[in-house]
């Protein structure tokens, strides 16, 4: 177990360091997600009072699209200079590689969500009634997206059509997470937490199932990609 955690930290640290150096998340993914929020704000006309009601859905659409880029990037770096073969030869437990990649994507998305949420509160004029529920549901949704994204990212990694295949594979799968996160955020904004708990449970179960699937399937997926 200690070795798994150590290897997980090694892979996550490596991926986060690469992202910090390349600044793809801050210079490309974040502006992209911010642009999505801004365009929706223009399209839905702030004067009609629609934005505060649809804000959670728009936020999670923007986050999900940004998540696709983050997952794609996490596996694209393994295509550089035969790095994927280096990982296969490294002796690292494939489960640790999977968990490290998922952890790295989770941390990147959480940081991105914090900035996006601040933008949303400013642009869409929304107020939060239950911060704890907002943070809990964001954490679970992000973990679910990262867990599922890392499974499908590995599946698509070695294919020429990975950029187009990944959204086709991932978006339908994470639809329950997007729905759950949107409903939970609506409840957190309106101050009706009891409506959120079923969705929080759905997101928790989704994250656990996909994490378990990734731990088991990542080794064979790395062989096939």
């Amino acid at each position, binding site marked *: 177990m200690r070795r798994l955690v150590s*290897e997980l930290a*090694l892979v996550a640290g*490596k991926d986060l*360091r*690469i992202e910090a*150096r*390349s600044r793809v998340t801050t210079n490309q993914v974040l502006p992209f997600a911010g642009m999505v929020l801004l365009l929706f704000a223009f399209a839905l006309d702030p004067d009609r009072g629609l934005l505060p009601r649809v804000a959670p859905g728009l936020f999670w659409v923007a986050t999900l699209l940004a998540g696709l880029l983050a997952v794609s990037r996490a596996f694209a*770096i393994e295509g*550089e*200079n*035969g*790095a994927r*073969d*280096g*990982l*296969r*030869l*490294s*002796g*690292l437990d494939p489960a640790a590689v999977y968990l490290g990649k998922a952890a790295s994507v989770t941390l990147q998305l959480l940081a991105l969500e914090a900035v996006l949420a601040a933008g949303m509160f400013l642009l869409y004029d929304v107020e939060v009634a239950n911060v704890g529920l907002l943070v809990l549901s964001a954490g679970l949704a992000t973990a679910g997206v990262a867990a599922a994204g890392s499974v499908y990212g590995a599946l698509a990694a070695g294919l020429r059509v990975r950029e187009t295949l990944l959204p086709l594979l991932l978006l339908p799968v994470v639809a329950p997470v997007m729905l759950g996160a949107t409903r939970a955020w609506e409840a957190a904004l309106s101050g009706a937490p009891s409506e959120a708990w079923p969705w929080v449970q759905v997101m928790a179960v989704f994250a656990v199932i996909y994490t378990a699937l990734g731990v088991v399937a990542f*080794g064979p997926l790395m*062989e096939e990609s």
Partner: protein
Amino acid sequence: MTVLGRFPALSGVDLDVMEGDAVLLSGPNGAGKSTLLRLIAGLVPLTGGEGQVLGRDLARDRRSFRAEVALLGHDTFCYDDLTAAENLRFHARAAGRPKAVADAVLERVGLGRSANVAHRLLSAGQKRRLALGVVLAREARLLLLDEPHAGLDAPGREILDGAIADAKASGRTVIVASHELEQVRALVGREVVMAGGHASGGLVAEPDGDLVGV
């Protein structure tokens, strides 16, 4: 047999390498040398026949011995946005070696002054040295070197030859695929000639360096 795409890349290969041996794989381009090394490393599947690497079954268990194998291939296995030192430390730690091993190897391959330079900014020769460093930092039992002299300058070749000699002296197994026949023959004890995906018999080096057929 190993099939890549629709065509067999290797067939009829019969190769025994004992632990501690140093072997040269020679043969023309397309003979299957690189594929054979990747097969031995467990990176490509054995689709027919049988084989063992470090006592493990090549067909059923190719993931089990990879941690004990180091491959110097055409790629460096390094990340463009990490520095030379960070890449080496990552591979060393992944193999369970301490940071000190990576730092010592960095000096050994002559990249001490480029330790903090990103991989993408290294010259082609420096990248080859770093790739050699990745192999050495793993301290593996089996070294597979594919055209290891390519892209190296004279000092780099000396470092490489020294590393092969040291590995051989310390009882590790080394298989080198190369077109630099004279240089590698001087370092190894045996030569296997490959052609068209076949290993067509071996040559054994006598102590005085002359090659005799077997």
